[in-house]
């Protein structure tokens, strides 16, 4: 059986991949995908912990997260499309409406 530490290391790696994507990719779609990656890293932690502790709560949380992630992806993609229609780009370098 694979020890739980391996899962944790994998989850950490996946999480930081996602974080790096959010912080450095310029394409909004890539940013969204990176967010999915971070969520899934969390899922891995939950599932691993669930098996280690023999408790189903973690798996219930995972189902929740998948559902919420699906919703979030739908809304996020819709917003990306709306942004593209309005500005003709999904490059975050050009989308600077938050400037003070």
């Amino acid at each position, binding site marked *: 059986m694979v020890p739980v530490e391996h899962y944790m290391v994998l989850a950490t790696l996946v999480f930081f991949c996602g*974080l790096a994507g*959010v*912080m*450095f990719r310029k394409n909004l779609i890539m*940013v969204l995908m990176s967010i999915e990656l971070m969520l899934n890293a969390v899922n891995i932690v939950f599932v691993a912990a669930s098996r280690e502790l023999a408790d189903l709560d973690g798996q219930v949380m995972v189902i929740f997260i998948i559902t919420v992630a699906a919703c979030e992806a739908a809304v996020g993609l819709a917003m990306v499309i709306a942004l593209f229609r309005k500005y003709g780009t999904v490059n*975050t*370098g050009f*989308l*600077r*409406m*938050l*400037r*003070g």
Partner: protein
Amino acid sequence: MLWLMILFPLLGAALNGLLLRNASKGVSHTVGVVAMAASFACAVMAYMQFMSGGGEPIVYKGFPWIDAGRFSAPFNIILDRLSGLMMLVVTGIGTLIHIYAGGYMHEEDKTWRFFSYLNLFVFMMLLLVMGDNLLVMFVGWEGVGLCSYLLIGYWYKDDANAAAGMKAFIVNRIGDIGFLIGIFLTWKHFGTISFSELRELIAQGGSTLDAAKMAAIGWITLALFVGACGKSAQIPLYVWLPDAMAGPTPVSALIHAATMVTAGIYMMTRLNFFYYLAPDTMVIVAWTGAATALIAATIALVQNDIKKVLAYSTVSQLGYMVMACGVGGFGAGVFHLFTHACFKALLFLGAGSVIVAMHHKQDMREMGGLRKYMPVTHAVFLIAVLAIIGFPGLAGFFSKDEVLWKAWIGGGPLLWGVGVVTAGFTSFYMVRLLCLTFYGPNRSDHHTQEHLHETPALMWSPLVVLAALSAGVGYLGIPHFLGGNNLFAAYLKPVLFVPEQVAGQWAFLKAEYSHALEWSLMGASVFIMLCASGLAIKLYASGPAPVLETWRAKISGAYDLLLNKYWVDEVYDSWVVQPLRDMSQFLWRIIDVVIIDGIVNGAGQACALIGGLVSFRSSGSMHRHAMVLMIGIVCLLSVLLF
């Protein structure tokens, strides 16, 4: 039936005001008159039913209106002998005046607004009269004030009319504060504001009223009397009524002579058991009434505007009624209210006919000799004048005599003296008005003279009815010593109720007096009336006598004082209105603009300033935001975890 009576005028107002805005004036007039006539018919039927049932008070349950905790004010109406009489006066005289108004407003383009307001007024007046608790009465009380404002300012394009409307409204508001305080106090101390329940309470717990309750009643009656001062034009709040003559003359007749201004007297009579319990308030009431009667009568002596004379005469007569209430003679007060409604409506409508014939000139110095041109108007006007000066046999004679008699036995010779002097002044100025208008040479210009003619039948027929009433209604109250039964006093007796613990103080109301005293008092007042009328005839019968000029020069100070109405308006202006205005200016320019606006705007500007200072940090880059967020989370977690 009773509800229908109240609702018909509202229906008429709604029809005219909402649906028939483009209708011709004939249609507006018809709707107004039909609504009133239907209401009057209902009133008569309800009244006959009521009297055949013995005349016991009936409370008609309406609907629950305000229920809040222990407080409840259902929308009930009460039919007793007092409200029955008032509803007949309001709807009956109202109908006649509506008919007349069609002729008076003939030159107007559209009259839907006028008849809508007039009907609405009658509706509100009926609410005031019929309401079974103070709050329903207050709705009517405010409603008639509103309609009065709307109708005084009917010709609102003239600034003076609009100002007169506002003056009436604001002066009435001052009185209304008193009325409201009275309602609050009543509820606080008695837990109910229903007339019938209050009466029960006093009747049952009559002997258990402690000193605190008695003091409370003193304040309640005083507060309510302030309200009555506003509505019934008593000193110091009478100033609005003469200005209210800016409205069309039918309005003056209906609202400012016959009905609305009697609301104060009606309210005091309705709560007579309270007023009997507060002898101190009653003294104030009596003397306020007497002072108002005298002062208004002196002002009326020298006025030249025909409607102004009638307006001050109304104030003076209202003073009589209030005085009668103040000495405990509520019956006499209501009797005078009743006769006064008939002859004062007639006087105003007659004056309205004269004004129409004179092409809206109201200065009596330009009139004269109208008897020739307007025989019918002259005849009815003569009856009205004789009625108001108390010529033996006409309505005013009986009611005024009753009031003066009550003043003598209740207030003493001094109060009676004021009343009789006022009666003398009344005779003088009314006969002066009659002479200047209808006798002597005509002093108008050629153009007006050419067009002088009698008014159409639509206008003079209501006058004839009112003249018959002015001549006749007095016979309802022939006093005992003249061989009558004083039916009117007997009729109103069940309404009046002297609680037992003050019965001693008001015992004189029931005491027997020698007929010789009554005869001599009556003789004195008739003698003074005849003297004053004779003097007026001598001075004015063929135009103003030349001797008047020399008199005027001799007493120019007093004359100016009267002509300018004791400068009361000017005094109020400099002592009340100007300080208020200055204070408002101060509040506006200093407190509001500088201080409050300064704080509010300053707060906003400070935020904008700080925002501007720190905004350089926001580049708008999403990635930087995400990075900062991340660093923040890491910092926070490290603090929390380690």
